[in-house]
């Protein structure tokens, strides 16, 4: 079910009414059945897959709880991870792997061809796999106890507000909230509805309007594009994906609030980051925290932080640059890239981030990024350019298309010739400016207005505007970008 649909709102009203009036047991079954309905509205046949994933992780974690034998525990962990990632690899990476193997065989002149099957990518598989795996590993490492109540554990995996595109939650943060319903607070309800409406605004008013413009930009043959064009299209896509994905997170967090549940934040003005490292503490925070805890820190021999906050950017690994650390960084970001999609272009995107993080680490060591305001400002400015340009492989047709577009930055005789309609540049400029000054405007306004009546009136005028815009532009069945991951 899509959040931006009438069906979902009808579903939500029924669900919330039941949620606050039912006793614990029935409430847990309500969450379970509603989550299945939510998912089944897309494709009923994939319900079995998600339930299989739940069963694998439930029973393997129970096994860890009961068994002390290290070898047996390791074998079960191995099979549990194999089945979790096996499903993910099969459904998400089968084409990618077979394409590459066939390509290699073709190069060496072999006749072997791995057949293609019509495989549909199950929605949210990357998200619920990571969430389940984190639970299994935590139980294995005795960081948390295995949840014996099947319905409660299932709800942790299939909880509908975050099932399809995150945030990626940790068991210790969420299971207790699902088990003991937090106290009803009217303030949370109010904030929750506001977050949902704001998320819808970002999606239907901003992201969905940027989508066709971005599409037109990326359809233009790269030979026509000037440097200004490359920056414009990168900025536009950078904002499209940000508004689209953060909209989903706002709605998910808002929905959880309606149930009195706290979800970790997933975004925090990522384009205000002063370095790529800081970016990863502000962008898709729950994914980067997951990668930090289950990929990066174990490889660096650091202790898992076991929380879905903070992202990758904590000072504990502000280590000196070594060959080893660079390789680990590369591997981490390659995995981060390939998680986003079964295509080399995502690997290119990940590697570009790893390289620039390394560069910034070196630079930080020599100059000191926060030495003074000017260096900090320059660091933010160059980080922003890099971040935006790094989105090119994400949106390009292929990695070679991405390189062609990047190539126009250095191999270009028409620096300032326009390849798009004038409005494209105006929109890119306007949206960048608005985004950059928005938090400062809000802070200034809040500091300036001491009068609570004036504050309330302003709030209601803004909400009236937002709701009206959502009503006007509400477009049903327009998918969120992150559904494809």
């Amino acid at each position: 079910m899509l959040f931006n649909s009438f069906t979902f709102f009808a579903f939500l009203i029924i669900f919330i009414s039941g949620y606050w009036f039912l006793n614990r047991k029935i409430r847990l079954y309500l969450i379970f059945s509603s989550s299945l309905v939510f998912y089944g509205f897309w494709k009923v046949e994939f319900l079995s897959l998600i339930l299989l994933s739940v069963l694998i992780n439930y029973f393997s974690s129970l096994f860890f709880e009961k068994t002390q034998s290290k070898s047996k525990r390791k074998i079960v962990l191995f099979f549990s991870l194999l089945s979790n990632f096996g499903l993910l690899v099969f459904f998400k990476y089968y084409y990618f792997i077979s394409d590459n193997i066939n390509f290699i065989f073709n190069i060496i002149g072999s006749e072997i061809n791995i057949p293609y099957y019509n495989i549909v990518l199950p929605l949210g598989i990357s998200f619920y796999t990571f969430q389940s795996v984190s639970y299994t590993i935590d139980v294995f490492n005795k960081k948390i106890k295995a949840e014996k109540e099947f319905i409660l554990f299932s709800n942790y995996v299939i909880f509908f507000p975050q099932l399809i595109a995150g945030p990626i939650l940790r068991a210790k943060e969420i299971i207790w909230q699902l088990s003991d319903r937090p106290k009803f607070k009217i303030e949370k309800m109010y904030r929750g509805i506001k977050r949902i409406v704001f998320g819808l605004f970002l999606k239907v008013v901003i992201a969905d309007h940027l989508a066709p413009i971005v599409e037109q930009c990326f359809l233009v043959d790269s030979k026509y594009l000037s440097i200004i064009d490359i920056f414009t299209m990168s900025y536009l896509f950078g904002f499209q994906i940000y508004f689209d994905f953060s909209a989903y997170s706002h709605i998910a967090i808002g929905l959880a609030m309606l149930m009195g549940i706290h979800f970790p934040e997933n975004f925090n003005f990522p384009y205000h980051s002063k370095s790529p490292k800081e970016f990863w503490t502000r962008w898709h925070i729950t994914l980067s925290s997951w990668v930090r805890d289950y990929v990066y820190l174990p490889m660096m021999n650091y202790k898992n932080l076991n929380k879905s906050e903070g992202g990758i950017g904590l000072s504990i690994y502000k280590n000196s640059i070594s060959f080893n650390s660079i390789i680990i960084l590369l591997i981490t970001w390659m995995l981060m890239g390939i998680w986003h999609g079964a295509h080399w272009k995502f690997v290119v995107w990940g590697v570009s981030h790893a390289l620039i993080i390394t560069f910034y680490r070196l630079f930080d060591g020599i100059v000191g990024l926060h030495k003074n305001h000017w260096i900090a400002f320059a660091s933010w400015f160059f980080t922003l350019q890099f971040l935006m340009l790094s989105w090119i492989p994400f949106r390009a047709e292929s990695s070679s298309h991405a390189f062609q577009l990047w190539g126009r930055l250095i191999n270009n005789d028409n620096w300032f010739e326009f390849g798009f309609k004038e409005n494209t540049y105006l929109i890119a400029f306007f949206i960048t400016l608005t985004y950059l000054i928005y938090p400062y405007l809000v802070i200034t306004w809040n500091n300036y207005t001491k009068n609570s009546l004036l504050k309330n009136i302003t709030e209601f005028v803004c909400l009236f505007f937002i709701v009206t815009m959502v009503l006007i532009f509400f477009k049903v069945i327009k998918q969120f970008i992150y559904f494809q991951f």
Partner: protein
Amino acid sequence: MSLKKEIKTKLFFFLLIPFFSWFFLHTIFFGDKQKFDQLALGKKTIAIKNYINNKPINCGSYLQLEECLNYIKDKKFKKRILWVGNSQLDSVNEGNVITSKLASYRVSKYFYDKEIGVMTFAAPNISFQESFVVIKHLKKKIHFDAIILPLVFDDTREGEVRESFIIKNKKTPKTFQEISENKIILYLDKRIKWNKIRSSAQGKIYTFLYKTRNLIFRIKPTSTRKSIKPIFDKNILFLEKILKEAKESDVKMILYVAPLRNDIKIPYDKIEYHSFIRYTKNLSINFSSNFYNLENVVPKFLWGEKAGTKIGVDTEVDFMHFKEQGHAILAKNIISILDKLF
């Protein structure tokens, strides 16, 4: 007021906002019909529909197409001609919806007795890419012996095919989501005119943004519009495709440079505009098409003004649409061209 009470009050009012908001939209936009892509018309320039034997001879969207096809499919016609162009074809400056006669009507009427059917498809700012889509679609429905295509430099700046040009096969809803969503929207449309009011409000917002942009950047109808290379090249590529397919299927192509107001500075880069004319002329020679330059056929007193495209400006000079006598002149020229060909 305690915090809890304040929040309760806020929540109460917040939940009322959608209803207030919809009431507001309903009050303002119910019955409003202006479309964003017809913004350049209005006031002094109006779109007109003409009929022969109670059948429309010009149409502007696929929704109206069947009616126009009814006319052209008449078995009486031994030859059929399609005229595809922008709003110049179906709009009249200082016209009258009931009495004004378009160039396309005059041409159709003239050839009706000669058993030649002429139908027109006109859409605002139609690009060659969109013309290609329209021609391709119509060719599947009926064979045309000739196609008339005006060459409008301004329209080579339009790079995308609008949704209204894409024929979508009615897809059967497959998922539960699609089924339920369709039902809810159908219900809302019936009860509260959900889509009608929203599309009207969307049009108003786009218009406001467009006019604000023009005001801030001082964009006027006379402002020079530079050509955009990739969009221009793409359009030329589609013009070539149209000519190539016409030649292959033995359809006569008539290309003409559309009349342009020339008593004031034209809104194009002169070098680009003239090179466009030269280039299209060469193309037409290469594909054995018929090329005519009708750029100056409509005298200056037959051009007028259109609705303003800037906040606070009521009317502006119109470069594209002329008065009814202008249509008569254009029709005369087209008739004389077609008379030579048939």
